[in-house]
């Protein structure tokens, strides 16, 4: 029996393995080792107060008991006013932000603007995108006082960086032939922009506008926490007064509106693109 199967021992047995994501084995090991060391160090410096975390469960329970049932009625006036303020801020800031960001986007497109203008516009975008909306809101609240005006300014500024960056990238990736054709007819610079470039980027520009409207509403719910008006201010007040049932109602409303907005914005974006 054993003599009839000697050849099996000589066959090189290889097991097939799926291709790794990172090809070089050395890099793979260095990355894995580095990640392991980092994780150990980072978790070590986390300073978790486990006694406090253990207390968390009863606290969470009390919290959620406080949440239920959500109370829409007793503070409905404040909730409604906050929601309306958020909506005004969202719409006004999106429109204003887009109006300002169009020239910045044109200036930040390498194929349209000369180099100094390009760098200037790109640095505006970088500045606006670096800082979180809440940080900007803190400063605008200091400058313009509490209320929706500071929120409007914050969202406008944030819209500027987002919209100008994406739009200018769009302008940079247009089909040059059509723009050349318009230029060949002897069109002026403005005519070249509005007939050679604008039609090519318009569908995506509309899609981006709808997307930003959606983002701005979400952000408007947060910047209120630092005093910039809107539903966030109402939410913060509810938390400060330990009215968790009202806070739950506000959170549910925010989730509902955000889901609705995302759904509709998805449909609109699919239609225009």
């Amino acid at each position, binding site marked *: 029996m054993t003599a009839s199967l000697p050849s099996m021992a000589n066959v090189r047995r290889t097991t097939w393995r*799926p*291709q790794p*994501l990172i090809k070089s084995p050395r890099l793979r090991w260095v990355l894995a080792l580095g990640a392991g060391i*980092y*994780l150990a160090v*980072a*978790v070590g*410096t*986390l*300073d*978790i*107060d486990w006694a*406090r*975390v253990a*207390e*968390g469960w009863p*606290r*969470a329970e009390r*919290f959620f008991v406080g949440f239920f049932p959500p109370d829409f009625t007793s503070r409905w006036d404040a909730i409604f006013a906050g929601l*309306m*303020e958020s*909506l*005004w*801020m969202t*719409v*006004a800031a999106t*429109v204003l932000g887009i109006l300002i960001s169009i020239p910045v986007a044109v200036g930040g497109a390498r194929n349209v603007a000369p180099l100094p203008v390009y760098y200037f516009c790109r640095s505006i975008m*970088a500045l606006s995108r*670096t*800082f*979180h909306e*809440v*940080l900007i809101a*803190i*400063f605008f609240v*200091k*400058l*313009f*006082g509490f*209320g*929706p*005006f500071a929120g*409007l300014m914050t969202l406008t500024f944030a819209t500027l960086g987002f919209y100008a960056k994406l739009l200018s990238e769009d302008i940079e990736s247009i089909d040059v032939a059509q723009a050349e054709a318009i230029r060949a007819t002897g069109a002026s610079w403005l005519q070249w922009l509005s007939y050679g470039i604008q039609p090519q980027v318009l569908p995506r520009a509309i899609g981006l506008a709808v997307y930003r409207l959606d983002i701005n509403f*979400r*952000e408007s*719910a*947060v910047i209120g*926490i*630092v005093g910039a*008006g809107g539903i966030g201010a109402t*939410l913060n007040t509810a*938390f400060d007064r330990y009215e968790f049932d009202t806070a739950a109602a506000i*959170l549910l409303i*925010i*989730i509902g509106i*955000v*889901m609705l907005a*995302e759904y509709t914005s998805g449909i609109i974006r699919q239609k225009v693109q």
Partner: protein
Amino acid sequence: MAVLQSKDGPIWRKRTTQADFSVWFCWLLGVAAVSACFYFISDKTIWVFVLSAPQEAADLGSRMVPPDWAYSSQLWRPLWDTFNIATLGTILAIVASIPVAFCAARNTTPSKVFVRPVALFIIASSRSINSLIWALLLVVIVGPGVFAGVLAIAFRSIGFCGKLLYEAIEEIDVSPVEAVTATGASSAQTLTYGVVPQVMPAFAGISVFRWDINIRESTILGLVGAGGIGLQLSASINNLDWSRVAVILLAILVSVIVSEWLSAKIRNALT
């Protein structure tokens, strides 16, 4: 395309008169709605404060310059914490979002009727609550500190990673999956050899992208007590110590730019 008939022959126009009117009417409605928004906001604004903004800005500027450079030596620990909040939060979110994404994707979900809607609801609710609000809730539950920040980032990112990942899973090429199934592989084997290799690059890209966003988000979580450099920032703002605020803002600026550059590099290398 519309043509207007006149004595001198047809005149080409972009739209018919009716379409012209309806477009004009839409613009009218839009402009009216936006003006109403501006009106309501201006109604709620105390203009005296707004008009004093230039003086206020000049005042702030003069207090922020020169920045308190000596303070920067105290910022290493908060920056390290901020980095950890973003990184550990992202890792937790990735681990949690993988099963959620596989349950949410139409082609891999175990049950379309029951599991998929639950997974989609998890994704939607995680996405629609901002990480600052998550932090607000978690600080009450687990206490102030870095841990609350890590969890807040993780909870917010599950939805983001889950959504992008399940969209990537739904867009995979079916033929490798069918080929693996044809060998008689079990469903777990089909998943690991047919689906996972296809979404791996997209998934790595999504994680790095979210990590970059999380660095930005984790700089503010300290404002509600969830650790990181935001703690120092809110303390300095409350003490009206603007020269320190300037240093902190510069530190945030640098770290966000570095992380964005790094993430762009990694994503370029992946594709």
